[in-house]
């Protein structure tokens, strides 16, 4: 099995400030779904951004490699990197409200990438967009393509964004909490749709989320991120049966389950948090960082 995305020892920090990712390594196999879980601020979105080349300017790469389809992105000059990412990867963003340009019609926003990057003609791109909108089950496609984003509901917009992400047949899609901004009834449909689309197109998925319930439904493997470190990497059924790291166990104990809806939930104990933070500190000293 080829590792389509291979992140090795990625270390990021706030420019002139604290380190936010500590030597993170993770692998996504072609055609598989890898979950990336962790609480807010753990750095999971930053990994997605590092892969897609959209890290904020305030964040600096201190070391590590991001191999996408056999090429180390961080070693490429910015121009080539953008081209490379545009051809092989795409994003399903968190917030469908701000992910479409409000002053442009939906259709051109989907076809733009096809015309810009793959060099398709406008009619080819239009045809492709229509096929994809049909795959994500959008009704009345000509009308939707002519609409402005604010004329569509949140769920519709997320469908458009999913269609748009799959349009150029990327081999990897980063889904950054794609259901967080949607209400619960729509969440389920969107999740199912993403799974269905990625099986149909054979796309690998890096699924960033804080929701272990979602992970158990869609992922083949996962990395648990805590305070900027990967504390556990596991294949799917094993993780829920036998989590190894204390933080993973604490996280699972804090998640409601369907089988025991009335069971009490345990907050993540403070000593777990301290343990990981101490580990971080030692790790930093070992790596020769100035803490």
């Amino acid at each position: 099995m080829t590792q389509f995305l291979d992140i090795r020892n990625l270390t990021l920090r706030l420019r002139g400030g604290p380190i936010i990712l500590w030597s993170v390594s993770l692998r996504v196999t072609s055609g598989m779904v890898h979950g990336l879980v962790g609480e807010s601020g753990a750095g999971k979105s930053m990994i997605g951004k590092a892969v897609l080349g959209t890290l904020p300017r305030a964040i600096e790469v201190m070391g590590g490699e991001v191999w996408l389809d056999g090429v180390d992105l961080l070693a490429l000059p910015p121009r080539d990197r953008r081209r490379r990412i545009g051809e092989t990867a795409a994003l399903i963003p968190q917030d469908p409200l701000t992910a479409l340009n409000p002053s442009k019609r939906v259709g051109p926003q989907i076809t733009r990438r096809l015309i810009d990057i793959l060099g398709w003609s406008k009619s080819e791109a239009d045809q492709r967009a229509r096929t994809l909108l049909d795959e994500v089950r959008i009704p009345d496609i000509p009308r939707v393509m002519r609409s402005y984003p604010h004329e569509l509901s949140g769920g519709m917009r997320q469908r458009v964004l999913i269609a748009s992400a799959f349009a150029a047949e990327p081999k990897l899609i980063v889904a950054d909490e794609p259901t967080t901004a949607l209400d619960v009834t729509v969440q389920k449909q969107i999740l199912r749709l993403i799974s269905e689309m990625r099986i149909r197109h054979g796309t690998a998925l890096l699924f960033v989320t804080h929701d272990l319930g979602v992970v158990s439904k869609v992922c083949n493997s996962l990395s648990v991120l805590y305070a900027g470190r990967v504390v556990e990497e596991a294949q799917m059924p094993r993780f829920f049966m036998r989590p190894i790291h204390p933080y993973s166990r604490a996280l699972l104990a804090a998640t409601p389950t369907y089988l025991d809806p009335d069971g009490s939930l345990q907050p993540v104990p403070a000593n777990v948090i301290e343990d990981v933070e101490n580990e971080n500190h030692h790790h930093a000293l070992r790596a020769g960082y100035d803490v």
Partner: protein
Amino acid sequence: MRDARAHIRRPLGARLWLSGTWLSILALAAVFAPWVAPHDPLAQDLFLGRLPPFWMDGAEPGYWLGTDSLGRDVLSRMIHGARVALMVALVAGTLTCIIGASLGVLAGFYRGWSDRIISRLVDIWMAFPPVLFAILLIAVMGPGLVSIILAIVVIDWTRFARVIRAETLSQGAMDYVASAQIAGRTRFNTMIAEILPNILPTVVALLTLEMGIAVIVEAILSFVNLSISTDSPTWGGMIAEGRTSVHQAWWVLVFPLFTLFLTVLSFSQLGEGLKDRFDPVLR
């Protein structure tokens, strides 16, 4: 949801109509001033001094809004004054907008050192009292239409730079900008093709507001005798002259003042109206 909305065509709106009408009248009067004005705006006739407007006793036919103390026709002077006012509004407003908005977009989109330089410059600039600044500038450059326009541009670009910078910052943080970058757009292209269309409504609103402000600044400068030469009538000059004889001939002061007020109000209302129509989310 959309179907219901598609059938509602929003009416043009009273304020867009009223302000547009007034500004059109003004523009026509300014362009055709030599033909529209009933009299020569500079012709003096001391026998016809301080004639009241047409509805009052002692009015002379043909002098609709009366005459000033030198016997010059108030209406004709106002029509000719509109030329200067609109010229200043259009040219100074547009130049200010282009310079200020460009710097604002650069600062807000590229951030980093360009933002630091531009923002500090704006801070320093705004610490100067604007009217004194203008007076100083004109004292150095000498009075004239070009000096006035330059003075307005030099004073007011900061207004655009500030607002547009903030607007660009907030647009730049949206996911659609990140998506465009992932899709391989260069940063410059992203700025022009993705961000610019979204800040355009704000730019338009600010531009019309600035046109109103330009008219006021021109009037203020005329009032302190720093506008263009005394032989071309301006609203500010008329207000200054009318002030001295307000007890004998209030009309010399009140008509230009009211016109000025109406014009500035129209500019700002036009801006609001246009913003509503251009904004894709409100449209």
